[in-house]
């Protein structure tokens, strides 16, 4: 065991890293430096072991089963739903729907709620910095409905232009959907303010919390958002599972999105009665393992504590900013006052793809390209892509030093 390098008062990163087996790997002969956390995070042993434990002890189909295994699996499944409820501070587990991920959740809202809320000539507002998953579903809805999709503009620092937003709202605005934290810019948007403004016009608001879930304490009651969606895999949890929060009154009023087993109360050849919340929205055998193991991811985050995670990650961001400044010739895209540990940049004169390739050979995993925000990068910033380093709680300042060394090397190689 190496000597622990303390990153913050509270989180002992060296110790924490022992819980992440993948981080022990060598990549291309170098120790793996994983900075692609905004795409998906790595998983602690408690999460990985929860999968094995599920399959080795209680694997069974949930609900309706009367045998003991099925009861145990159901209990664990519903127990995880309760953890998710508490994680977002929702009123009731009726408001917590297990989905496949953020994309699935937003599609559910766009299809079921969007369909009943948006009509011909109406307007939907999103922002220029939305991830494709919070953009294309609304493009599709608006196209189908002959409604207009409007984009809140983004300023040069990567912040939403709130005055423009205010002036975009009119009596035709039926729905607003915005990202809590931009996966490309790192910007933490003033979603509470947006929701307040929207609600003063009786407009419901959807929050894409895919990037917020691992970094901030989510509080749907405080925000008063109408819907919120996020993915397990970005918050130290398994792939294939996500959480959709919806206010009970909305979920009650909405038609089901998918149809099949589990989501019905009774079926006959002629007519079907749908199940109560939240089951109405959970057709078919759910991702039982995924849902249960997601509970272990919630436990992992809550054990560390949101504030500690935040402090730890802010130190990393600060360290990276300082080093980048020092190196020079690095353009950071996204310099909002309120941002999290995502840093998009370009080594000036070097294509992001070239930068990413060399870093990969140095064992440093970053993402390059549009980060599923192509209009933001191409149309708003007129760039061919960026390099994105996104930090998680297990990253260290030492790893950022390696990134900085790599960038210096790249500058030498290309310029």
């Amino acid at each position, binding site marked *: 065991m190496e000597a622990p390098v303390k990153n913050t008062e509270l989180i002992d990163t060296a110790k924490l890293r022992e819980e992440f087996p993948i981080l022990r790997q060598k990549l291309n002969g170098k120790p793996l430096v994983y900075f692609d956390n905004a795409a998906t995070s790595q998983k602690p042993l408690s999460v990985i072991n929860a999968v094995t434990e599920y399959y080795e002890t209680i694997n069974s189909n949930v609900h309706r089963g009367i045998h003991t295994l099925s009861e145990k699996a159901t209990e664990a499944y519903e127990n995880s739903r309760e953890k998710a409820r508490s994680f977002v501070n929702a009123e009731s587990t009726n408001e917590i729907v297990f989905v496949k991920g953020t994309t699935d959740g937003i599609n559910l809202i766009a299809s079921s709620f969007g369909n009943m809320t948006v009509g011909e000539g109406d307007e939907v507002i999103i922002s220029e910095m939305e991830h494709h998953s919070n953009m294309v579903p609304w493009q599709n809805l608006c196209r189908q409905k002959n409604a207009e999709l409007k984009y809140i503009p983004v300023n040069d620092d990567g912040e939403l232009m709130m005055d423009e937003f205010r002036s975009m709202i009119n009596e035709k605005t039926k729905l607003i959907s915005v990202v809590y934290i931009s996966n490309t810019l790192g910007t933490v948007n003033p979603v509470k303010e947006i929701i307040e403004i929207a609600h003063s016009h009786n407009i419901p608001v959807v929050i894409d919390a895919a990037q917020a879930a691992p970094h901030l304490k989510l509080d749907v009651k405080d925000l008063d958002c109408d819907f919120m969606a996020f993915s397990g895999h970005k918050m130290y949890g398994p792939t294939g599972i996500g959480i959709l929060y919806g206010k009970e009154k909305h979920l009650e009023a909405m038609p089901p999105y998918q149809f099949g087993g589990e989501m019905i109360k009774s079926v006959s050849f002629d007519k079907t009665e749908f199940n109560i919340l939240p089951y109405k929205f959970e057709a078919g055998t759910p991702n039982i393992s995924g849902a249960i193991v997601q509970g272990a991811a919630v436990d992992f985050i809550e054990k560390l504590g949101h504030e500690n995670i935040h402090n730890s990650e802010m130190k990393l961001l600060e360290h990276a900013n300082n080093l980048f400044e020092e190196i020079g010739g690095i353009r950071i895209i996204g310099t909002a006052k309120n941002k999290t540990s995502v840093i998009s940049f370009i080594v000036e004169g070097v*294509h992001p*793809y*070239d930068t990413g*390739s*060399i870093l990969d*050979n140095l064992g440093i995993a970053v993402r390059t390209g549009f980060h599923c925000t192509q209009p933001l990068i191409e149309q708003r910033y007129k760039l*061919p892509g960026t390099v994105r380093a996104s930090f998680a709680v297990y990253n260290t300042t030492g790893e950022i030093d390696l990134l900085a060394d790599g960038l210096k090397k790249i500058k030498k*190689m*290309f310029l």
Partner: protein
Amino acid sequence: MNTKSIKEREDQIVEDFSLFDDWMGKYEYLIELGKKLPVIDEKYKNESYEVKGCQSKVWLNAEMKDGLLHYKADSDAVITKGIISLLINVLSGNKPDDILNADMDFINRIGLKEHLSPNRANGLTAMVNYMKKFALTYSGQNVN
């Protein structure tokens, strides 16, 4: 003008690369090649000449002269340009039929592949296919 056969050219590249014993050297060489690649005329930098399947943009064109096919290409990324440079070096100035028959196994032999991400490797395959498509057109056969 290069009068060597495709096979000879491939061997030459393999020999050039054997001088480097670490990937860094190989990459540096690619970058050098990339920087030197004569750029394509701006008018070809549009969708119709774009090779799909690369994360960086690649434009490629070919012209027949005296029965030999000559390629020109460009990319917005330098390493990509370096790789294209290798391909052009091997294929340009050959008969369409010879180009079609080239097995291009130097790509494996230069020992770069383990350091080329599959993403780049896919891009490389896309480029080779795109180049062979030109050859196919000019060899008088139909693309199906």
